[in-house]
C-alpha cells in the first residue's frame, strides 16, 4: 500500500491561552511513501513526527492537506476504517488480558462477514505470535513479560488484523540498550517478511539509519530532507541535518571561502571550487580526518581514546567552539605525548553551509 501525503498541515490552539497564535505541529508535509518500504520519521522531540504518525493513523485529522492510501482519500476517515496497525510507545497492552487475548482483541472486533470463525481467529493469532516469536508466552499477562516481549506482543496485536499500514511510535525508546539492538533487527525482519508498508517514529538517528529504507528528517514541523539513510548522511541539505545524523556528531567550524579555498582560521585546508567568497559553516565528519604530518589542518591535541578497532582523537582548533572528535585508524594514531597533531581532510566528508541560512553550499 502506497501512502501519499499532500501538503499536510496540522495546527493546534496554543496551550498558553494568552497567545492567540496556533502552534503548527506539521507544516506543509508532502511525501509519497512507496509500497512495502520501512520509513523512519526522525527528529528531535517536538518536531511534529508523532503528530504526522497520528495523522496517518487517523487519531488526528489534518487542518489542511490530503492523505491517500493507494488511490483512496482517507483524509477524514476515522482510524477504525483505515485498516492500520499502531504500536504505541508504551505498548498499551491491556493489563487484565493474557497475551493471547490481547492479540485476539482486534479480531474479535470484526463484524459480519469479515468476522473469522473462532478457529480462524486462533490460527491467525498463533501465526502472528509465531512471527514475532512469542508463541510460548501466550498464557502470560503483560506484567509478567520483559519490555522486549511486551513490544513483540504489541506488534503481533497490530499485525494480526493484516493492516494495510503498520505504524510504530518510538518503538524502542522503552527498551534497554542491548534489547534495542536486538529488537530493531527484529522489526526489520518482520517488516521484510510481511512486506507491509511501515512507518516508525524515533528521535534516535542511529536507530532510524540502521533499519529504514528511507528516512525523513523533521524539525519544527517542517521536513528537512527525505532519502536513503546513506544518501542523507553523505549529502545533507543543511547544517541541522548534518548535525543530527552521525555519532560522534559532525564537527562544525566557523570558516570562510576565499578565492576557491576553504579557510579555517588562517589555514587554507581544502579547495572549494565554484563557491563564491563568503563566511561559512564547515562541517567535518569524524571519519573525514586523516593524520598526516603534512596535513593542512593543525590542532592542539587533548586526548587519544583507544577503542580497539578505531581510535578517537580529541583536539582543539581556534575555529571550532567545541572540542573536535576525529575517528582514525588505530595504526595511524598520534602518540599521546604530543601536543600538536596535523590532519589532511577527505573532501567528501566536508560539507559547507551558508553562514546565515545554514543551507548547503555546493558547486
Amino acid at each position, binding site marked *: 500500500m502506497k501512502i501519499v501525503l499532500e501538503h499536510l498541515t496540522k495546527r493546534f490552539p496554543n496551550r498558553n491561552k494568552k497567545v492567540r497564535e496556533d502552534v503548527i505541529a506539521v507544516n506543509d508535509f508532502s511525501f509519497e511513501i512507496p509500497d512495502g518500504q520501512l520509513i523512519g520519521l526522525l527528529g528531535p522531540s517536538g518536531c511534529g513526527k508523532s503528530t504526522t504518525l497520528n495523522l496517518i493513523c487517523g487519531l488526528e485529522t489534518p487542518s489542511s492537506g490530503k492523505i491517500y492510501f493507494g488511490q*483512496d482519500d482517507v483524509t477524514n476517515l*476515522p482510524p477504525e*476504517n483505515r485498516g492500520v496497525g499502531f504500536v504505541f510507545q508504551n505498548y498499551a497492552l491491556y493489563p487484565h488480558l493474557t497475551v493471547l487475548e490481547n492479540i485476539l482483541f482486534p479480531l474479535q472486533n470484526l463484524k459480519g462477514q469479515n468476522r473469522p470463525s473462532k478457529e480462524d481467529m486462533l490460527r491467525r493469532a498463533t501465526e502472528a505470535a509465531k512471527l514475532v516469536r512469542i508463541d510460548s508466552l501466550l498464557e502470560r499477562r503483560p506484567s509478567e513479560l520483559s519490555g522486549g516481549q511486551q513490544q513483540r506482543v504489541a506488534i503481533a496485536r497490530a499485525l494480526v488484523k493484516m493492516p494495510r499500514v503498520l505504524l510504530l511510535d518510538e518503538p524502542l525508546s522503552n527498551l534497554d540498550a542491548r534489547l534495542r539492538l536486538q529488537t530493531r533487527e527484529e522489526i526489520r525482519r518482520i517488516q521484510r517478511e510481511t512486506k507491509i508498508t511501515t512507518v516508525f517514529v524515533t528521535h534516535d538517528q542511529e536507530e532510524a539509519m540502521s533499519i529504514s529504507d528511507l528516512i525523513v528528517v523533521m524539525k519544527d514541523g517542517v521536513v528537512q530532507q527525505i532519502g536513503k539513510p546513506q544518501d542523507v548522511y553523505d549529502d545533507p541539505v543543511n547544517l541541522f541535518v548534518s548535525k543530527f545524523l552521525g555519532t560522534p556528531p559532525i564537527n562544525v567550524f566557523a570558516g570562510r571561502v576565499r578565492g576557491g579555498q576553504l579557510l579555517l582560521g588562517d589555514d587554507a585546508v581544502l579547495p572549494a571550487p565554484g563557491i563564491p567568497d563568503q563566511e561559512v559553516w564547515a562541517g567535518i565528519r569524524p571519519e573525514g580526518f586523516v593524520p598526516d604530518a603534512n596535513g593542512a589542518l593543525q590542532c592542539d591535541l587533548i586526548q587519544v581514546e583507544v577503542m580497539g578497532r578505531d581510535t578517537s582523537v580529541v583536539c582543539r582548533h581556534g575555529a571550532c567552539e567545541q572540542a573536535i572528535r576525529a575517528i582514525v585508524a588505530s595504526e595511524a594514531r598520534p602518540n599521546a605525548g604530543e601536543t600538536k597533531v596535523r590532519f589532511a581532510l577527505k573532501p567528501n566528508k566536508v560539507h559547507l553551509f551558508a553562514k546565515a541560512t545554514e543551507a548547503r553550499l555546493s558547486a
Partner: protein
Amino acid sequence: MDYSKIESQAKRKQRAEKTVVYLLLTLWAVLVLFPFYWMVLTSIKSYSSYNSEYVPTFFTLHPTFQNYVDAFTAVSLGRYFLNTLVFTLVTTAIMLVVVTLAAFAFARLEFRGKQLMITLFLSLMMIPNELVVITNFVTITNWGLRNTFAGLILPSVTSVFYIYLLKENFEQVPDELYKAAKVDGTSDFKYLRRVMMPICRPTLITITILNVIECWNAYVWPRLITDDARYFLVSNGIQEIRENGFGRENIPAMMAAVVVISLPLIVLFLIFRNKVMAGVARGGTKG
C-alpha cells in the same frame, strides 16, 4: 468502498452521541440544582403569596427579604449560626494539634511499643461511630457536660483516619531532612513546625476541609447532647425551626433559614473548588 459515506456516517454518529451525552448531563445538573433554586425562590416569596399559590409558580415578581429578617428575629438562627461557627473552629483547631502530634510520633519518633500502638490505632478505624456514641452520651451526661461546648467538642476532636492520612504523608518526607535538622541542633518540635508541617500542608488542608464540612453538617451528636436551644447547632436548629418554628407553618421563612445555613459551605466550596474536590477524593466519604 465508499469512503465519503463512512466519513459522514461517523460524523453523524459522533454528533448524535455528543447530543445524548450533553442532554444526560444537563438533566442531572437540573436535578441537582432544582432543590437549590426552589429553596432560594421560596425564601423570597412572601408568606401570604406562598400560601395562596395552589399551583406553585416557578418565579416571583415581588421578591421580599422579610423572610430573612424573620429567620434571624423570630427564631434564634443567628445564635445557631454562631454556635456552629465556634464549634467548627474550636473542634478543627484542637483536632489539628492532636492529629499532627500523633502522626509525627508515629512517622518520625522512635519509642518502644510504637508498632503495637500503630496497629491498635489502625484497628480503631474499623469502629463505627454509632457503636461508641452510646457510652459517650452516658459519659458526657455523667460529667455534667450536657448543653456545653465542651460536651459538644470533646468527643469530636480525634479521628484515627486523619492521623493515618497525615502519618502516611509525614513518612514521605525524606529522612535526610531530619538528620540535617538534627545536625543543626533543631529540636523535634521545631522540626515538626518548621519543616514537616509546611511540606505536608496539602494534607493538612485536606483534613481541615473534610473536618469543617463534617462539623458544619454535624447532627447526631449535637442532637443527643443538647436540648437547650441556646446550644443548638444549625442542623438541630433547622430541625427545631421545622417542628416548633415560627409559631405556625411558615415555609418561606424556613427556606430563608435553609439558604442562610447552606450558604457558607457553598461559598467556601466555590472559592476553594479544586482543593475541596481533591481533598474529598483523597479521603472523604459521606455517612
